[in-house]
């Protein structure tokens, strides 16, 4: 038999570990879904690996790439189970995290019982070093080695698991941090040490320090977990190195993920956005909105020109609502920009004191779950509404693996909402459906309209188990013309892992007015950053020809406090480059704010992303089918639509039997084991060569 090549993507979620095994040249991937094993997630991964390998009849040596997304770092932070930390900073500034940047937001502002989250580091675990630099990196006060050694000894006696170091102005000169780092290594061999000048050398001490602190907080456990997982996979016979999804949507080798642990904080959600970007490119759509609806939240991301939007204003350590992200500790590393709202299948519907129907943010979760699960849930949820409206098939939930009770959905809605609103339970269910769609719409709005982006110029791709039920009505709020549902939307995130490239992000702060910035300066700064990234990639085995470099500069008007990231066009930097970047900034600023200040412009942070293009599974188009859709017809079901103001007989199709070129007019329901797609009246579905469902107005 000829040598086969497999790509493996593993995504660990709260309930399930999803694995996609893709054979190069084969259209359909093998999917495995196993229960996540919280005590040691390695077990769950190995179960999934065995299951999928058996399905595919693959030999371990045939696996060429393994990419992994993990919520380990996120959970360590949310559950506050990270390392016992030490923190080292410049003398006089050790109270940074006890003074704190966190404050109450949302309704907490009026909460007389508000408690600010405790700092991740105890105050007695902070040591201050006698040294001082200025913003140019010049030494104002040399490092007092005797004082530093004695402080380090004191910290070592307290036995931290990890130490974060952030000295003032170390972005401009890392020498003192490095010297302290060496002292720490000597005093506490084997302890995890994170230096701010390595983790994220950008000016603004609080953000740089908290990014470093978070890295140290999750570092030791990440290193341990990834080391064991890699070892187990090797033991299983999978010899290729393990790669980890970063929050930015690029991947890095597991060894680096252990060193720069903070980079994988938002590893999981990033994968879905990458999947959307890649599937979009395959069908010639570089501008996409990704829409991922799960049990408790929906996440919306934006892809422009084939690339996901990335933010540097992210905070970790609080709940998931969009507003709450304003609190928590800031991390400055690149994170795929997502708007997240508390609306998912499990979100509970209720009536507020003013008599208005509300949905979420409370969720029934997996247990007791929606009323229809029959596991003790009595509160009506979005899933219950979908059952009452006829959108979900009680006999085909999770492909028939799970029994649900439609009468409990109806009862919960009638009891809790219908009677109090004097509304028929079906109309109440439809109200829930609409409100959930509106909440999810607000996430779409945040990521598009709020930033002056017209969502109508985008196609939206829906995934997650529940996404394809709601997406057409979410898109309708913005007149987004095209909705796409990929095959197996329930495991699209794991698939996204296989579509990602390696990348390293490096940044430096150099504040200079555009008019006095020289091309030589720009070349020197960018070259240094680029070389650092190239070195990493080369060490990891990427060939020079597969390396792509992206440069950008955070730019602002002099005296402003917020920068806008301006990409630097590829190609050599010339004397005209600074002025060209300034002009791009001025134009973009006008586009965003509709005002054109004449003030001088300055460059602040220089960033380079060095990408190593990885070999990926090729998704192949399928030949056109016969167009005879009755082949996939499973039967008829009553479903409720606003357009028909009542229930109508609706065709139900087996999505897995649909072929390229098939066209189905709404109303229609398209079922597959891990998801259901609703095509309302007035819309039609077409199946494209990659077996995506493409839904638009008739």
């Amino acid at each position, binding site marked *: 038999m000829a040598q086969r090549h497999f790509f493996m993507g593993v995504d660990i979620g709260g309930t399930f570990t999803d694995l996609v095994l893709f054979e190069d040249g084969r259209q359909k991937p093998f999917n495995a879904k196993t229960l996540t094993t919280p005590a040691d997630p390695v077990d769950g991964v190995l179960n999934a690996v065995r299951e999928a390998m058996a399905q595919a009849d693959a030999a371990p040596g045939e696996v060429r790439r393994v990419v992994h997304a993990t919520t380990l770092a996120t959970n360590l932070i949310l559950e506050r189970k990270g390392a016992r930390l030490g923190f080292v900073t410049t003398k006089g500034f050790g109270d940074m995290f*006890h003074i704190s940047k966190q404050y109450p937001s949302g309704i907490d502002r*009026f909460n007389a019982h508000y408690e600010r989250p405790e700092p991740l580091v105890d*105050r007695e675990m902070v040591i201050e070093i006698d040294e001082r630099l200025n913003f140019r990196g010049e030494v104002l006060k040399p490092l007092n080695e005797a004082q530093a050694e004695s402080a380090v000894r004191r910290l070592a006696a307290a036995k931290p698991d990890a130490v974060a170091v952030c000295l003032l102005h170390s*972005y401009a000169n890392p020498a003192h941090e490095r010297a302290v780092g060496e002292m720490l290594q000597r005093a506490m061999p084997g302890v995890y040490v994170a230096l701010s000048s390595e983790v994220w050398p950008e000016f603004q001490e609080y953000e740089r320090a908290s990014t470093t602190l978070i890295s140290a907080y999750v570092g030791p456990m990440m290193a341990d977990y990834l080391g064991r997982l890699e070892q187990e996979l090797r033991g299983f016979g999978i010899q290729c190195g393990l790669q980890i999804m970063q929050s930015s949507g690029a991947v890095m080798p597991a060894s680096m993920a252990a060193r720069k642990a903070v980079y994988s904080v938002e590893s999981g959600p990033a994968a879905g956005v990458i999947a959307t970007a890649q599937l979009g490119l395959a069908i010639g759509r570089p501008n996409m909105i990704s829409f991922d609806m799960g049990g408790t939240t929906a996440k919306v991301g934006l892809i422009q020109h084939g690339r996901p939007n990335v933010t540097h204003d992210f905070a970790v350590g609080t709940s998931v609502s969009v507003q709450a992200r304003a609190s928590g500790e800031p991390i400055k590393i690149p994170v795929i920009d997502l708007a997240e709202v508390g609306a998912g299948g499990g979100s509970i519907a209720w009536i507020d004191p003013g008599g208005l129907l509300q949905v979420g943010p409370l969720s029934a979760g997996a247990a007791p779950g929606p009323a229809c699960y029959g596991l003790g849930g009595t509160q009506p949820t979005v899933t219950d509404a979908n059952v009452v409206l006829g959108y979900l098939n009680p006999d085909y939930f999770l492909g028939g693996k799970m029994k649900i009770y439609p009468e409990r959905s109806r009862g919960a809605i009638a009891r809790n909402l219908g009677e109090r609103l004097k509304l028929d339970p079906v109309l109440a269910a439809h109200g829930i459906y609409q409100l959930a769609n509106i909440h999810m719409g*607000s996430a779409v709005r945040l990521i598009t309209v709020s930033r002056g982006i017209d969502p109508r110029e985008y196609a939206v791709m829906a995934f997650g188990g529940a996404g394809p039920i709601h997406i057409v009505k979410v898109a309708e709020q913005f007149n987004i013309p095209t909705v796409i549902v990929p095959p197996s939307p329930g495991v699209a995130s794991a698939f996204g892992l296989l579509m990602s490239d390696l990348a390293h992000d490096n940044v430096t702060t150099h504040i200079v007015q555009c008019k006095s910035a020289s091309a030589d300066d720009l070349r020197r700064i960018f070259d240094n950053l680029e070389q650092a990234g190239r070195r990493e990639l080369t060490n990891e085995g990427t060939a020079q020809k597969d390396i792509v470099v992206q440069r950008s500069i955070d730019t602002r008007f002099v005296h402003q406090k917020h920068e806008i990231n301006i990409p630097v066009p590829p190609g050599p930097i010339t004397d005209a480059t600074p002025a060209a970047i300034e002009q791009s900034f001025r134009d973009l600023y006008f586009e965003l704010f509709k005002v054109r200040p004449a003030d001088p412009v300055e460059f602040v942070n220089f960033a380079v992303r060095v990408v190593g293009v990885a070999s990926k599974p090729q998704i192949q188009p399928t030949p056109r089918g016969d167009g005879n859709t009755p082949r996939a017809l499973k039967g008829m079901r009553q479903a409720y639509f606003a357009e028909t103001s009542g229930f109508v007989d609706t065709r139900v199709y087996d999505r897995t039997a649909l072929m390229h070129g098939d066209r189905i007019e709404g109303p229609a329901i398209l079922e597959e084991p891990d998801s259901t797609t609703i095509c309302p009246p007035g819309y039609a579905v077409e199946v494209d060569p990659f077996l995506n469902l493409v839904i638009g107005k008739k």
Partner: protein
Amino acid sequence: MKDPVLREVVQNALDTIADEVGVFAARSAYSPFVNQSGEIATAIFDPQGRLVAQTKRGLAHACAVRIGQRELLKDWPLEAMEDGDAFVFNDHFRGGIHPTDVMVFRPVFHQGRVAFIYGAMMIVSDLGGLSAAGLPANATECFHEGLIIPAVRLYKAGQPNHDVVAMIEANSRTPRRVMGDIRALVAGGNMAAVRMLELIEKYGCENLLAIINELMDRSEKLTRQGIERIPDGTYQGSYIVEEDGIVPDKSYRVRARITIEGGDIKFDFSGSDPQARGAVNASYSQSLSGIIFALLCFLDPEIPMNEGFFRPISVELPLGSIVNPRYPAACNIRIGTVQAIVDSIIQAFAPVFPDRVQAPGGTPHSLLAAGRHPRTGDMWAFLDPHFGPCGARSTRDGVDCMPDPLFAGQSAYGRNIENYELEFPLRYERFQVWRDSGGPGKWRGGCGLLKEVTFLAENDLTVRAVDRCRIPPQGLAGGKPGKGGGWIINRGRPDEWNPPPKQTNIRVPAGTMVTQLVSGGGGYGDPFQRPPELVARDVQEGFVSIEAAARDYGVVIDRTGGEVDLEATRRLRGR
């Protein structure tokens, strides 16, 4: 009942617009105050001048825009407005707060008529006055506090009005920045206009206004429901404001008398002292913002802010008093008075909301300096504000260092040292939790801050500790006051001295070091009732010294092990 879903949709859309435009405007602002979105208040009004929606950020400014907008309509009736106009306005006897808090209004036209009006306010970087950043510590008239701008057109039919721009620029020490700030507010208005027009297009103007009417009724209903939960009766509270920086040793009292009758609430401040000569007076709208903030602490904070919310509320702020001064009173140091309003309301309600009581916290301290930059020769104006930390609560400690929730959006570590050192000729020496500054109590008041900076160039220094230094944040229910803050110049040197809390334009040479001490919050309950293990933890973490543990709490901590000496503690507490 009309369609509850549609109402919810429109309510969400309006809230989002008000919130988003504020965030958006903050992103383009220049003022160091506004490097977070917390200090921009934005609102949408209907053509009758009724509040339609308002961001819940910028709470300290919340009511200014609403009142300013009514005054605007007196000078500029709708017929006089053109599409693309933007008005700038800061008169603090007509809705404003003090000259440096600037309002911008922009009508939103639909089919040739004003359909809505956007309004926003934020503090700008400098509009002249006695000292840099428009925050003089010793003003006695509004003219000392900056350029007073009546409602004038900054943009005429979409075109900048260069006359007004030139007038503003000529009156600012930092002309570029101040126009950058004002333009940020206009940018927010442009965005609000686009978004409101989308809503009109979607629902139709008539229909939208009808829904908005229902939403106002709904907010009124929710507000009344909340008020009805407070038993009928009269509630009283008061709090003190220390000297105004002009008349020595004179203090002022704010007195609240609250009457609840069913779903109606009346706030009567007629017992408050007459206005001060110094700038500690709170303008009418500023006092109203304090009242509304305090009330929200006792209602459902999610009630959408619109005209309906205000219907059950009546307010008596006597003209000529410290809570509503007569022209031309100076008002820029009013926050101590606003916090006194909040504290007197919280204390008034203490009998009915015993678990929501909070002892008074600290008030803002601003360090300002202005000079010429030795490297560039440019004029510079520096502002480093800190907000008072929280007082202890009846159920738990005050949050250390964290600004009082009235300043939601401001954080204790709000501005990075590296940023300031890069921009100004100065070097910070330390930024620390001020040990032993939290008021002792069964529940400890939040610790204040200690920050020290050395100026590397000659400058004019203004120290402006708003309040609660000489009369520090008081304790409640047997709790002790927090430690009163202030300023030290050249601490530990032969020429060390303590300027008063409020002093304007002290010329100091290069090398001058300024120590800023931000008062700690008041304590709650008898400190001898504080569990010894909590005191031991405070000592271990360094918030309380071993000496203070014994002196203030009667808790003896072992010097070597950090353990509580139970026997010695019992003896000390038994005394």
